[in-house]
């Protein structure tokens, strides 16, 4: 706990005096109403003729709510706290939209969507600024194209589905396919400050998850030292639907604070399927007309206005960025369902995880064929672009020939070679969890497989090759390694040197 400043009596009086001189003591005009009905987390109140949509209201007994529906004679208010509200109780407007008090003091903390601490430590926001939860996204003119990589440290993603700072990349797949694992690895990898780029502030937003899961994720982030630059905004499945609905809005408001200070921010929304479910629940209780799958008509707008706030600001406007990784859970690999198709059309690409691949041992279980990054090579380093070009094609060719692999002895040389190459590429793209790699290590490992160097190397020994490759190159070819760390393209001489160095390592391991 920080040591509190010790005031002398004189200093204390001066402090009070300066605060008082800035206080507005004009007579207050408030708009009041009376609670007519309470049920399912929604309160109907009459009066409140001057209440605005999205305005925060305060009840007599201290509860807080948010106006979400304005009818002729009544307002519908969703409750934001557990304090009991009774019929006949007075409610008054506050004149404020729902906001969160943000400052650097939030870094390293676990908070709920109303910015209350959940990590059993007192939360004191010094020099905080109020950021509204709902806000219009930055205009077209204030933005600049995405051209700076956000390294995930995952070879399959950084080579074939590269993500840039300011991009929205969807992670989509069935339950237990490694969606959260990809997000966590990306957060953990930001500790490296790869390519000499500035630190990325990470915000993990848990929406409707089990508390045990949230605790496990926080423990992992703490263990890996990621909480030094991360914030966790958590709403569990036992929280009211209103609180779950607000969670991603709070995470985005916090991200905007750092973005406006010229920093790069990564926000993970885990997951938006539960967010859509919470919003559906609120809308049905508010008696809004139900559309497809009982979702309200503005379910698309809910996610589009949220994700549109992810932006790469122009240098004139600070140069900061918000990159978002929304997560969607599909049922039975159906990416043509309502919510998945909505979010796919909003985002700048998707990483599609398949349960078949996961179960067969390909982890991360990324389907390179259906995954795409619409930013693509613009967010890749020149070095990575140099070697990642043929990867997708090789994988696609391997998959189409994989059925024939069991007939190994009956295949022609070219086909067998393709299958051997494909197996090695798949083996190299496999990566254990919580072990994100730097730029140089990714380059070396992918190059080893895609160049054909490992075509005659046993597949089961590839993990041990990968373990040693990076350190070996760093020891034997320091200049090459340094160039790779910066993301530079290697010339023919450099490529030859690298090839020879890796051949030496291969020889020693064979």
């Amino acid at each position, binding site marked *: 706990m920080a040591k509190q400043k010790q005031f002398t009596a004189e200093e204390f009086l001066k*402090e*009070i005096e300066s*605060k*008082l001189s*800035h*206080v*507005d*003591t004009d*007579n*207050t*005009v*408030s*708009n*009041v*109403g009376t609670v007519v009905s309470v049920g399912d987390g929604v309160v109907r109140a*009459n*009066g*409140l*003729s*001057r209440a605005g949509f999205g305005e925060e209201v305060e009840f007599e007994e201290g509860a807080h709510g948010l106006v979400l529906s304005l009818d002729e*004679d009544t307002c519908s208010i969703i409750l934001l706290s557990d304090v009991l509200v009774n019929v006949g109780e007075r409610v*008054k407007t506050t004149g404020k939209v729902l906001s969160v008090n943000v400052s650097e003091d939030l870094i390293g903390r676990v908070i709920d969507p109303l910015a209350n601490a959940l990590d059993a430590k007192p939360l004191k926001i010094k020099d905080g600024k109020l950021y509204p939860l709902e806000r219009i996204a930055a205009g077209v003119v204030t933005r600049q194209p995405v051209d700076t990589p956000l390294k995930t440290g995952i070879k399959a993603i950084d080579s074939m589905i590269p993500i840039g700072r300011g991009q929205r990349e969807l992670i989509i797949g069935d339950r237990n396919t490694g969606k959260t694992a990809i997000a966590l690895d990306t957060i953990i990898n930001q500790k490296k400050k790869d390519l000499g780029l500035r630190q990325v502030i990470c915000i993990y937003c848990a929406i409707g998850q089990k508390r045990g899961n949230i605790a496990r994720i926080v423990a992992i982030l703490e263990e890996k030292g990621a909480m030094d630059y991360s914030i966790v905004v958590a709403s569990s499945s036992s929280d009211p639907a209103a609180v779950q609905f607000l969670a991603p809005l709070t995470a985005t408001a916090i991200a905007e604070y750092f973005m406006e200070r010229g920093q790069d921010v990564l926000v993970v929304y885990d997951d938006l399927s539960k967010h859509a479910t919470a919003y559906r629940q609120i809308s049905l209780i508010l008696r809004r007309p139900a559309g497809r799958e009982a979702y309200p008509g503005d379910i698309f707008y809910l996610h589009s206005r949220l994700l549109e706030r992810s932006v790469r600001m122009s240098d004139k406007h600070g140069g900061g960025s918000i990159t978002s990784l929304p997560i969607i859970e599909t049922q039975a690999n159906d990416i043509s369902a309502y919510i998945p198709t909505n979010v796919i059309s909003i985002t700048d690409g998707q990483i599609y995880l398949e349960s078949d691949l996961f179960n067969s041992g390909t982890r991360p279980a990324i389907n390179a064929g259906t995954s795409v990054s619409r930013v693509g090579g613009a967010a890749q380093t020149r070095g990575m672009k140099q070697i990642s070009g043929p990867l997708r094609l090789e994988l696609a060719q391997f998959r189409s020939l994989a059925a024939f692999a069991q007939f190994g002895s009956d295949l022609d040389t070219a086909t067998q070679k393709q299958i051997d190459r494909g197996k090695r590429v798949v083996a190299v793209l496999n990566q254990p969890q919580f072990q994100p790699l730097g730029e140089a290590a990714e380059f070396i490992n992918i190059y080893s497989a895609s160049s054909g160097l490992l075509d005659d190397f046993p597949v089961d020994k590839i993990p041990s090759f990968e373990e040693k490759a990076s350190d070996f190159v760093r020891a034997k070819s320091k200049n090459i390694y340094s160039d790779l760390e910066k993301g530079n393209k290697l010339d023919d001489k450099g490529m030859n040197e690298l090839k020879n160095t890796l051949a030496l390592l291969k020889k020693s391991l064979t």
Partner: protein
Amino acid sequence: MTKADLKILALIIVQSGISKKIAKRLFIKLKKSEQKMLLEQIKLEIQKNKISVISAQKVDIATGKKLKELFKKEKIEIVENKDLGAGLIIQDNDTIYDMSFKGNLINTLNAVTEAL
């Protein structure tokens, strides 16, 4: 009867008054939910026609008349409450104007607490 019809009926009852006989016949004709709605509308209409004043000191007749003219209301309800310290709290329908010393003090304390 629709909600709009009940609103108009409530307005007529408040403005013109209604005899006991007619009121009894009316309530027999209406369903229970309509009766409830009509009573709510009558309450709202009565509320619209008056202002409530809570004052720390006694309010004289002239001041009361001035307030009625200012807010353009027919009726005024005055309650004395010395706890306010000084000043008035006026409620006009669903708007409250807090011009009391107590209200100002509470606001000042809240603002200073927030600022500190």
